[in-house]
């Protein structure tokens, strides 16, 4: 993957420093949320697949890690503040699955799956796929960081869930591969990270939250809570997305991807809520607030992304960033 186009003072300096190790980095504050989330996304990507132009050893460059830590502190503080109201929804429930259910019942008033099911045109649906490609092409990778940090029933349950996500022994069933096939059949670029320059900060934030929770052992509870909320809000919406793809007569692999998730996530939501999060909190009761925070973060960031996308489309705008010519390095 190529390095992305910068979106502000910080990402501009950062990307220059990633290209050329001799650049001395005195990173400014991020200009805005776009600059922050692109910078954070770029730094996180060093831990996944990296960039063609960047030495793989930079994954552990102390200067880069220091910038990452600063951005993460800001992102985490903002996220905790934004999620406190949603976490409160769990206050009246006792069991972890019931608490997660209360959180995932949060309704922002805007439903992206319903819009795509009934109203979106084909271009808008493809914009949705392009935005989602950042995550779905590495589907479940961020959650797999939790495996060595768990033990006992929670570990067994996480691996059981991930085994299904990762194709259950069949490469052709890898969820990330099913999504790549959906992109390709739709005339889109199925290569990893292809649409990074078109994807707004609110969707980068969705991805960054998973990496934040995944890469920090202290946030393992949040990572698993996020996973549970993601799975619990997937089966019914996937059916809407399938119906939208059928209504718009999109290529078959698009429907096939969401069709797979109707049944898969009707299973996964119970594994995640009960066997992963329930077992985790039973073994380590102090992790309960983290689990709820992670679930609330999933719900909150998805709601923000849904509002932004549906708002753009209902006002006749694209939900993507404008295409720009790549700068000459």
């Amino acid at each position, binding site marked *: 993957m190529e390095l992305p186009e910068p979106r502000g003072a910080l990402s501009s300096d950062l990307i220059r420093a990633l290209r050329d190790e001799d650049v001395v980095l005195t990173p400014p504050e991020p200009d805005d949320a776009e600059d922050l989330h692109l910078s954070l996304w770029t730094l996180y990507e060093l831990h996944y697949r990296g960039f063609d132009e960047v030495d793989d050893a930079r994954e552990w460059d102390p200067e880069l890690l220091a910038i990452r830590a600063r951005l993460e502190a800001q992102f985490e503080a903002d996220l905790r503040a934004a999620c406190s109201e949603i976490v409160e929804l769990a206050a009246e429930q006792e069991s972890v699955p019931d608490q997660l259910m209360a959180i995932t019942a949060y309704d922002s008033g805007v439903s992206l799956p319903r819009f795509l099911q009934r109203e979106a045109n084909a271009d808008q649906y493809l914009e949705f796929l392009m935005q989602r490609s950042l995550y779905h092409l590495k589907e479940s990778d961020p959650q797999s960081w939790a495996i060595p940090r768990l033990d006992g029933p929670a570990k067994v349950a996480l691996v059981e869930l991930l085994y299904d996500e990762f194709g259950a022994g069949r490469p052709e069933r890898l969820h990330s591969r099913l999504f790549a096939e959906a992109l390709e059949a739709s005339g889109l670029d199925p290569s990893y990270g292809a649409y990074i320059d078109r994807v707004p900060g609110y969707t980068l934030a969705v991805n960054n939250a998973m990496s934040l929770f995944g890469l920090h052992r202290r946030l393992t509870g949040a990572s698993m809570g996020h996973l549970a909320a993601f799975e619990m809000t997937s089966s*019914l919406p996937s059916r809407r997305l399938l119906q939208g793809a059928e209504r718009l007569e999109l290529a078959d692999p698009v429907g096939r991807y969401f069709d797979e998730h109707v049944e898969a996530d009707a*299973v996964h939501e*119970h594994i995640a809520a009960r066997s992963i999060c329930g077992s985790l909190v039973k073994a380590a009761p102090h992790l309960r607030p983290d689990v709820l925070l992670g679930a609330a973060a999933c719900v909150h960031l998805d709601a923000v992304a849904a509002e932004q996308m549906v708002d753009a489309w209902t006002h006749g705008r694209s939900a993507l960033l404008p295409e720009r010519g790549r700068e000459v390095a």
Partner: protein
Amino acid sequence: MNECQVTVIPDGPALVRGADRIRDDDGVAHEVDRPVVAVCLCGLTQRPPWCDATHKVATT
């Protein structure tokens, strides 16, 4: 004979582990093609015998 594990989720489906086929009330066998399957218990699913989370719409 395989051993199957069945876990009934309160107000939800039955999670079945270890089965190769699930036979429904009409005697039709359905191939199991994932490690764990959720079998509908509420009768509302649109893709029997598998749960499709419709029970959540019914109860909310």
